[in-house]
């Protein structure tokens, strides 16, 4: 039992606002954050997105970072979210011996590179941003802000990055390499990936409609979220009350296609089944699945098939919260982990907004209204480009 891993802190920022309280309030009020583009300069301004409602300068002020300090939006959002998690877990007051920071991101410093790319190539006016381009640069910025970490690394598995960060952090603790880990992901919107998803023709021109027959693609969002993981015994010794247990997790690869999931949802199936096995739980033990549910034709159909394969016809309540936050890509796994844990703590099933009718040939449908329900175990799914599929399970402390 001493090996039990618990979550002792969490923090989040997304289109729904800054912090757990704002997130919970928006979820209960069924209030979507998807709307017109405000910050990104693009010709595609008919594409709705979910932006974090703060400018870089506003976030710098919140964090007491000097305006002139060179730091891109992705790490800024990361610091805001990590700070909330670190404070809740009291990592500064009562520091565990060795702490890891495992960060998921894919876009990195692209938001600046795309503005200054010509300058990078032709003159020296913005060369200071060259070193901020790679994924690890933002992780370093976040780690340096807190100055408390002993191990840091960056995961980049596209839309499943944050959940893989959680898995790596958990394994580091189990292997005795560190005593606690701050895990999650951060990603700001960029013109680069907005256009990228647009070329794949998977962006809905309205607010997305996950798991609905009339779905027409996803909405991109931005955000960051982190969890603090440690062993239950260590949390007790540090005098911190666990929020829940991280009872199981798994990572598998669909190995089918770079951007499409296999017709029978093999990767998602293996990930969900693997997480159940790791947790020592049965399908019937799961009270709610926070689905990946992007709103694309391919994802929602194959995820439904995979859920049915794992859970049979008696599927637990499930919903996608992507219509609230947009698809926060590399941060989705941790943003939705925070949402899952809020649901677990407050005993409710979040709504799957904009559902109209069941997908043809699919027998299951999501929970469409916020619903009170006693919860013990929640599964959270994140699937990425390249078939990088991961699931994890959070359980109430018994």
């Amino acid at each position, binding site marked *: 039992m001493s090996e039990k891993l618990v979550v002792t802190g969490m923090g989040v920022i997304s289109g729904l606002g800054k912090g757990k309280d704002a997130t919970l309030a928006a979820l209960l009020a069924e209030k979507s954050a998807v709307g017109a583009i405000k910050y990104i300069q693009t010709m595609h301004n008919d594409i709705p997105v979910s932006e974090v409602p703060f400018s870089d300068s506003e976030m710098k002020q919140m964090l007491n970072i000097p305006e002139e300090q060179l730091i891109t939006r992705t790490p800024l959002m990361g610091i805001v979210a990590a700070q909330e998690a670190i404070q809740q877990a009291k990592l500064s007051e009562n520091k565990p011996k060795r702490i890891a920071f495992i960060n998921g991101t894919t876009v990195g410093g692209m938001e600046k590179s795309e503005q200054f790319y010509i300058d990078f190539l032709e003159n020296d006016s913005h060369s200071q941003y060259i070193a901020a381009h790679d994924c690890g640069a933002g992780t370093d910025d976040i780690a340096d802000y807190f100055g408390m970490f002993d191990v840091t690394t960056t995961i980049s598995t596209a839309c499943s990055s944050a959940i893989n960060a959680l898995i790596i952090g958990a394994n580091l603790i189990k292997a005795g390499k560190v005593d606690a880990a701050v895990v999650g992901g951060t990603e700001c919107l960029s013109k680069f990936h907005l256009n990228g998803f647009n070329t794949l*023709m998977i962006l809905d021109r309205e607010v997305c409609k996950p798991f609905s027959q009339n779905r027409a693609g996803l909405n991109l969002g931005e955000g960051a979220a982190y969890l603090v993981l440690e062993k239950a015994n260590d949390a007790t010794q540090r005098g911190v009350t666990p929020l829940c247990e991280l009872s199981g997790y798994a990572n598998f690869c669909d190995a089918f*296609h*770079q*951007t499409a999931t296999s017709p029978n949802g093999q990767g998602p199936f293996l990930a969900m089944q693997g997480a159940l096995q790791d947790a020592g739980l049965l399908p019937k033990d799961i009270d709610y699945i926070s689905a990946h549910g992007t709103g694309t034709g391919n994802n929602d159909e194959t995820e439904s098939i995979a859920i049915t394969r794992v859970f049979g016809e008696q599927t637990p309540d499930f919903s996608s919260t992507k219509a609230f936050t947009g698809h926060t890509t590399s941060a989705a796994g941790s943003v939705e982990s925070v949402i899952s844990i809020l649901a677990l703590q407050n005993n409710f099933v979040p709504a799957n907004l904009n559902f109209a009718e069941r997908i043809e040939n699919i027998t299951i449908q999501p929970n469409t209204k916020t619903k009170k329900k006693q919860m013990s175990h929640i599964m959270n799914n994140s699937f990425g480009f390249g078939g990088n599929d991961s699931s994890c399970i959070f359980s109430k402390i018994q």
Partner: protein
Amino acid sequence: MEELILELKKEIIEVLNLEEITPEDIDTDAPLFGEGLGLDSIDALELMMLMQKNYGIKVDNSEKGKEIFKSIRVMAEFISNNRTK
């Protein structure tokens, strides 16, 4: 039409990066997807972009795309009837 067919074959080879395939290797009437060249959904997106960029034809859903990309000949006929540039 034959001119357009040859032009199309060259463009497809270039945009899909079909190294070592020459226009002569592509059967004008064979299906482009599945069998034949064995192209997939991403190639279809590339072909839609090609239609828009080179011929000013906007194909905005993949169902319509499937109809048009049945073979090089079908594609060429559609282009000659609908092109705006």
